[in-house]
């Protein structure tokens, strides 16, 4: 049993677009999972605030969307059924309508009635992202959301992130470093061995850390998104 994170103290303000960089195993996924409340930290805690007022963790769940390593989709259901199901679980009004709406931006309206089992990797990833955006989240957590997307998909993702940023969404995303989505990033945090080694801070310049991460990624043979 390894400790994935050690002594991580991180404060993120609303509207920030934070990139988490680091090698595989540096703790990025664990940090994202804690933010999503999927894992409880062994020690320490996570809290959300609206101004000075703390928000109940249960309430926060309504406004969090996550794209993980796995697709989080049911292969035996159609794309539309998947989205309707999750829309219902999030208590959204008119789940069917919301599902249809969500399929359009990811270009899957034509495949709404097809089983997810028949989808390609890229299509599943797009549907997974659509799923995360269903409830119009105020906090979006992306765990290497670009993997599996073709260049067109990557481009779409980058502009979607920019759009979300413009509408005030807070984004926390893990990345290996070289990525189109970098453009929207306002802050970069580097994790190594479970500790924060660099943080460009609120209002700082994330570019140096991102570039460093991209270079290191190629040196040690880490994955580079194409």
């Amino acid at each position, binding site marked *: *049993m*390894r*400790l994935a994170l*050690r*002594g991580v103290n991180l404060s993120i303000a609303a509207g920030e677009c934070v990139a988490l960089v680091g090698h595989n195993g540096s703790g990025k996924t664990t940090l994202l999972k804690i933010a999503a409340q999927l894992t409880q930290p062994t*020690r320490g805690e996570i809290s959300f605030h609206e101004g000075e007022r703390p928000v109940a963790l249960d309430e926060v769940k309504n406004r969090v969307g996550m794209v993980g390593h796995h697709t989080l989709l049911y292969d035996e259901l159609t794309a539309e059924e998947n989205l309707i199901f999750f829309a219902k679980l999030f208590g959204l009004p008119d789940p069917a309508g919301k599902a249809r709406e969500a399929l359009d931006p990811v270009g899957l309206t034509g495949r709404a009635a097809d089983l997810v089992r028949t989808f390609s990797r890229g299509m599943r990833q797009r549907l997974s992202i659509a799923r995360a955006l269903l409830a119009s989240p105020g906090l979006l957590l992306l765990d290497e959301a670009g993997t599996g997307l073709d260049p067109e998909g990557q481009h779409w993702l980058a502009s979607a992130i920019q759009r979300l940023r413009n509408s005030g969404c807070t984004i926390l995303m893990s990345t290996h470093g070289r990525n189109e989505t970098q453009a929207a990033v306002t802050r970069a945090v580097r994790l190594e*061995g479970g500790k924060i080694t660099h943080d460009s801070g609120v209002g700082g310049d994330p570019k140096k850390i991102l570039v460093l991460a991209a270079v290191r990624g190629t040196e040690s043979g880490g994955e580079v998104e194409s």
Partner: protein
Amino acid sequence: MATAATEMQAPSRPAISAPSVLLVFLLLAAASYGALIWAPTENTMGLVQRIFYFHVSSAWCGFVSFILVFIGSVAYLRTRAPKWDWLSVASAEVGVAFFTVVLVTGPIWAKPVWGIWWTWDARLTSSFLLWVLFVSYLVLRTLVDEPSRRATVSAVFGIFAALDIPLVYFSIWWFRTQHPQPVIGDGGKLDPRMGYVLLLCWAAMLGVMTALIRLRYRLEAMRSEVDAYRMDAARSGH
């Protein structure tokens, strides 16, 4: 964040002190003397009946052990403190050991007296099922590698298994009332001297149980510590 290893004390005292060992030994000796020599020989069954003292007291201790499993399981889920998990596994293993004694002494008693090794009478059958239940608990533990997941998962199963105990006893007892069979029980009245010996045996067995659980608990604590050291080593060699 302090490492797990530096937070734990290296055990310097033995799990059970010499005086306690002596006490348990004396109790056991007294109980054995009482059971094998002092207690009157039973009329109908003869010498072999003496096994009843150990049979019954082992069953009681097995019970207490399984109640400890329940307590440990509930406490672990509420506090997440590993020591409760250590208590649970220690008690489960000791409980299984005691019920093994019950299941072995039962037939040993039955054969000379009733001519058959086993009857599916209420008490023996229930004991058998309890034994199986907690063996399953132990098997479950061997199949989950990650320590905190293992603790959580076995705590849940431990709670279910413990809650099952009264249901097992009732259902088997009522079944037997409907379909009576020869009972490997304490046939005959209990001479007061037998009562004293039984009490003594209970005390002795309780002592043995406590000692065994403490030893096993300590073993589990040490294993946990070794794991923590290993983790530290892996991390610093990073």
